[in-house]
């Protein structure tokens, strides 16, 4: 009979360790949560760009997803609730050569921070905004969000949500985003590719990542952890170039995922330089 060693002499290195504040692990995310997968895709995408790490900064607001900024080993900012985008806009406009990534949740970016989102998209602020959408407020225990499906149960809609949720790709497109995509945490390769494209693409890039919250959303809506992943596998329709107006989240009909928008248009900082900066031969 062999005896397993009690502890490995040295933990094997994870390929993303160079981008993680390993001294802050374990993280706060619950078993079955999808944020870690989205976060890991984001790190892989950053690495794949080949851009020096000190050219990146990550900004987040408040919530479970927003804790990502505390685990990434880059200059990172965990700001106030809903205000990651204007904070990031200040960074971008003051130092346009930085790659500024906003990593936050649906509650943070679209309820309390909704106004900032549409204005940054309108200006085509050169940010990469990654929204982990788990359809609820996870950190505060499962309240109704601006993304919670109609009739879904939450602690603040115990009899079902009377309201309709945002269609986030449509909102981003209508407000003026240059790049809009939606993937789930089951589609990690596509998601990583999308984040990579979004970082490289100049302008306001938006990626929605559907992600399960079994503890605070699934539990109240008869959705076990694996059920959510099955929905992501069986009830999603990959359709690049799809009309964002058809991107409502309705798993009975099927949910459109893929890259909706990828266009090249001048950014906020480019136009500011063009319109306001004095010419060199002035």
């Amino acid at each position: 009979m062999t005896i397993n060693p009690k502890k490995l002499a040295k933990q094997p290195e994870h390929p993303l360790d160079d981008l993680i504040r390993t001294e802050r692990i374990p993280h706060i995310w619950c078993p079955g949560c999808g944020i870690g997968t989205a976060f890991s895709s984001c790190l892989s995408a950053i690495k794949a760009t080949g851009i020096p790490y000190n050219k990146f900064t990550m900004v987040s607001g408040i919530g479970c997803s927003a804790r990502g900024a505390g685990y990434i080993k880059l200059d990172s900012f965990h700001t106030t609730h809903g205000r990651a985008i204007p904070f990031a806009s200040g960074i971008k406009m003051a130092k346009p050569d930085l790659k500024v990534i906003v990593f936050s949740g649906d509650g943070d970016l679209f309820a309390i921070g909704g106004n900032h989102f549409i204005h940054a998209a309108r200006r085509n602020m050169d940010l990469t905004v990654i929204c982990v959408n788990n359809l609820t407020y996870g950190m505060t225990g499962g309240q109704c969000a601006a993304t919670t499906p109609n009739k879904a149960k939450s602690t603040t809609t115990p009899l079902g949500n009377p309201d309709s949720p945002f269609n986030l790709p449509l909102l981003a497109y209508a407000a003026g985003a240059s790049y809009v995509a939606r993937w789930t945490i089951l589609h990690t390769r596509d998601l990583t590719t999308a984040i990579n494209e979004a970082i490289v693409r100049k302008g306001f890039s938006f990626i929605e990542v559907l992600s399960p919250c079994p503890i605070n959303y699934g539990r109240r809506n008869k959705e076990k952890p694996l059920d959510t992943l099955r929905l992501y596998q069986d009830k999603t329709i990959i359709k690049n170039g799809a009309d964002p107006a058809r991107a409502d989240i309705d798993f009975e009909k099927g949910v459109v995922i893929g890259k909706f928008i990828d266009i090249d248009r001048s950014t906020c900082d480019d136009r500011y330089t063009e319109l306001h900066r004095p010419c060199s031969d002035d």
Partner: protein
Amino acid sequence: MKPAVLTGEHYITGDIACAEGAIAAGCLFFGAYPITPATEIAEHMAERLPDIGGTFIQMEDEIAAIASILGAAWTGVKSMTATSGPGFSLMMENLGFGVCTETPCVIVNVQRTGPSTGLPTMTGQGDMMQARWGSHGDYELIALAPSSPQDCFHQTIRAFNLSEKYRVPVLIMSDEIVGHMSEKVVIPEASEIHLVDRPKPTGRKDRFKLYEADPNGVAPMPAIGEGYNIHVTGLTHDERGYPAMNVEAQEAMMTRIKGKIQGNLDDIIETESYRMEDAEIVIVSYGISVRTGLAAVDQAREMGYKAGLLRLVTVWPFPEAMIREIATRVKGFITVEINLGQIHYEVERCSGGKAPAFLVGSAGGKIIHPDKVIACIQEKF
């Protein structure tokens, strides 16, 4: 293309002088949302900043405006916003974030009369307690009150210097009259303007701790992109800047945030005295109301009262020790301010019952007439 420092004599408003003071201080980022009576600062910065390599951005609201200047500050630039009452209220949460993360920046509040929308085009000094306590939790910050356009220029430079030196948001508590009145403003040669830049880290990057303070209580501050891999959070954090959810970390953080201000009061607090040498009646004032106080002192002296004026140039931190000392040797205090009692209560608290403290205030809308101060002197002394 105009130079950054417009050396010479100008006839400009307090708002414009404030903007020119910011530019002379090295401000290169301004984010704002229009609001009366502070809009002219934004308009002037929009025109001036691009020429000198700076950036102006009009944000979607005041919450975004202060968020943008906090973000910009971490890229290493000096940044500022300007607003008035309603916008100041919206900025309160992020003001606390600025204090907690020790982010240098300057916030101008050209005060108008409140509460709520109030009298948007008319003066007031009703935001003085909000300036001190408006964001949630305990904290320290610095607030200065200019009383003329020349003073706006000078105090804005001082605000940037203090902000950089102590890594703290500094408030300029101007008001509608100071902001909108035109007077002579003398802008000195650039070489004569003393500027302070935030302390920068010098040691090994792998051993760097974001909030490891120097002996004066202030920690050196790197900028984004310099390779320090900083983490900045509004959660209670340890010396490394990492979230630390415990009482000990909270105490250590608060000790630093309060200590760097309380430990440097002599450098931060500035007051001015007028005919105070033998004064028995001390008029305490700040901002536009200083002019009421000056006129009242002269008038009272002519009437035979030994009156003097103590002008609070720095309002927060409050010059507690000075008021306590003065209280032991005078007949009383009269605080003149365009509100119904804010700094008056601080004077009363610090006088500790040793000298009575009276208020000559108003509900707002206009400068207080010196006659009201004289009437108070005649009634109480």
